[in-house]
């Protein structure tokens, strides 16, 4: 960079004059100003969905949209780490599991807790919190767990890192499936207060989208994406890749933990297998189909795939066509979903949105 500066005709002196730096440095918040449109548009889309849902007022549809918002949180959480670092992680759902159980521990009625989970420490047994307080603790707990695991795992890269995160997920699942006095083992933990209003979920999804955006344009996020695209050059420019990955891993872990707490409150029941391979693959699919490298892709991937799943379920339940019911056979919904995903990926290998973001102006590619 410095060699092209007009102030250095010798090209050997790497130090720029203060004026030259000031001239080249973009104005403060220039990047933020340019890219803030994306999270705003995405939140507006979700807001539109939420408003339409309340206007329809149908209970099952309400639940569908709550699921959608929870998935948005989870997939954006995946995007923060996987999208920015380019390292495929299968383990993030492990933090969702941790978060969900923290929410369960803190919000279930103490009388019931003593019966079903007698192994919990005393202060947790006595605790009875509001759902949002529990969600904050779940977030913190998941973030701490992500910090501990991340310190170890972020030294790895490539496929070894992916498998190590997989091993982490399997480890968390094994522990939670067997530690019966604390987690109730594989039986469901019931009695978690259910939150039926969509607004808490919408608010959380909105906050998470803005956090993901803030991280992506932060110094650390930009460094991480530089390392994703050109690892060698980034390392040579002084980027500490494991550190930047760890930052993203912890933020992602925190978001996944919050998503877990909200999952627990949206269905009222948790079991370890809720947060294992199938959820991992559903959320990963949404991320990849939407486009791994873009926040827009991760949010709209969820919206599009969820809409598709609902449409197929609707067809499976049967549509009246001229007096007779036309229904798809059971199981065809999943098959169709799989085939559609393969077709989308075959036509657009980098996902529907690739690296592009939703903006008001012309799409710029990164």
């Amino acid at each position: 960079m410095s060699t092209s500066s007009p102030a250095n005709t010798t090209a050997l002196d790497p130090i720029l004059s203060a004026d030259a730096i000031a001239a080249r440095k973009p104005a403060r918040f220039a990047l933020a100003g340019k890219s803030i449109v994306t999270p705003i548009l995405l939140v507006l889309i979700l807001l539109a969905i939420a408003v339409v849902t309340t206007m329809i007022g149908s209970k099952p549809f309400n639940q569908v949209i709550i699921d959608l918002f929870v998935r948005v949180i989870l997939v954006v959480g995946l995007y923060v780490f996987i999208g920015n670092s380019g390292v495929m992680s299968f383990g993030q759902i492990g933090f969702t599991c941790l978060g969900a159980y923290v929410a369960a521990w803190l919000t279930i009625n103490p009388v019931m807790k003593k019966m079903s989970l007698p192994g919990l420490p005393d202060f947790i047994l006595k605790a009875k919190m509001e759902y949002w307080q529990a969600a904050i603790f779940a977030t913190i707990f998941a973030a701490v767990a992500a910090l501990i695991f991340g310190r170890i795992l972020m030294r790895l890269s490539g496929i070894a890192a992916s498998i190590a995160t997989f091993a982490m997920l399997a480890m968390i699942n094994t522990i939670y499936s067997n530690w019966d006095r604390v987690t109730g083992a594989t039986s469901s933990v019931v009695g978690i207060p259910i939150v039926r209003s969509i607004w808490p979920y919408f608010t959380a999804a909105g906050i998470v989208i803005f956090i993901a955006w803030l991280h992506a344009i932060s110094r650390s996020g930009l460094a991480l994406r530089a390392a994703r695209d050109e690892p060698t050059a980034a390392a040579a420019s002084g980027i500490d890749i494991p550190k930047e990955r760890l930052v993203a891993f912890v933020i992602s872990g925190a978001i996944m933990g919050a998503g877990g707490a909200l999952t627990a409150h949206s269905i009222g029941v948790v079991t370890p297998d809720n947060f294992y391979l199938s959820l991992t693959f559903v959320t990963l699919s949404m991320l990849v189909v939407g486009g791994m490298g873009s926040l827009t892709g991760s949010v709209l991937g969820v919206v599009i795939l969820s809409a598709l799943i609902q449409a197929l379920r609707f067809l499976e339940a049967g549509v009246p066509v001229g007096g007779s019911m036309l229904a798809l056979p059971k199981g065809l919904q999943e098959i169709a979903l799989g085939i559609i995903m393969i077709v989308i990926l075959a036509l657009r290998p980098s996902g529907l949105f690739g690296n592009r973001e939703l903006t008001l102006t012309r799409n710029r590619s990164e």
Partner: protein
Amino acid sequence: MLQIVFDALSLGSLYALGALGIALIFGVMRLVNFAHGDVIAFSIFALLWPSTDAMAIVFAGNLPWFLLIPFVLAVGAGLSVLCEIVVFRRFRNTNPATMMIASFALGFVIRYFLLMLYSSRPKSISLLPILSQPVEILGARLPLLQLITIIVTIAILFGLVIFLRRTRFGLEMRAAAENFSMARMLGVRANRVIMGAFALSGALAGAIALIFGIQTGTADIQMGAAVMLMAFISTVIGGLGSLAGAVLAGFLLGAASVVMQVILPVDARPFRDAFVYGAVILVLLFRPQGLIAARGTKERV
């Protein structure tokens, strides 16, 4: 003691065969094939007539053993090649994450296809019941099947080594695994090699399905997934793309599981798998390239 050794070897054999099936495809295509577990399940269900009853209606399973075994292997190989032609061919040259998700979606399709035809209930089948009888060797009573599993695995491994080292096709495959574009430039036909790899991998899936089916006496749609996870991990620990590494790591994982089952205190035994996964992370930390690093997978600048 001998019992432990044989348990470890037979469990390791299953993992090794699974790992080999994944490593073969990864070698030529850089594809981590998540559909492999579902190919395993499909191979065993091919023996049954489609029905949703709990009692399996045996169809091809009544064949005598010398027809039964080739039939299952052929089903596995056929399905695997079909997957290549219909799906994976379109994903060459895309990034690994996309391929991985595509293979997962394909596995999803196969699994739900089976579910639609056979329902999710595990079905009891008795294949070659003669193999479940115990035999006595050096004072230990072992199921005959365990012995056969180990012998068959070793035979398959030897066969594969000879195939890869001594035949022209094997040579082409090894060349492709090492440097695919260079091999193509030197006249190795890409489609043939890749299809060969898929066929071999599918046949291995068929072999696992047979062993598993005889061992447990049930056909379960989920059965592929359990082997797959460990096989997948062994492939990476062994060094992705390295066939010998995959086999070695498969046996090591099997041994680690069995040994931990024995030496862990009773309270900790349910958490056995957590220890195994912890060991996996440790191995990766010290040898991120895998135990036997394959040539050509090192990062280049």
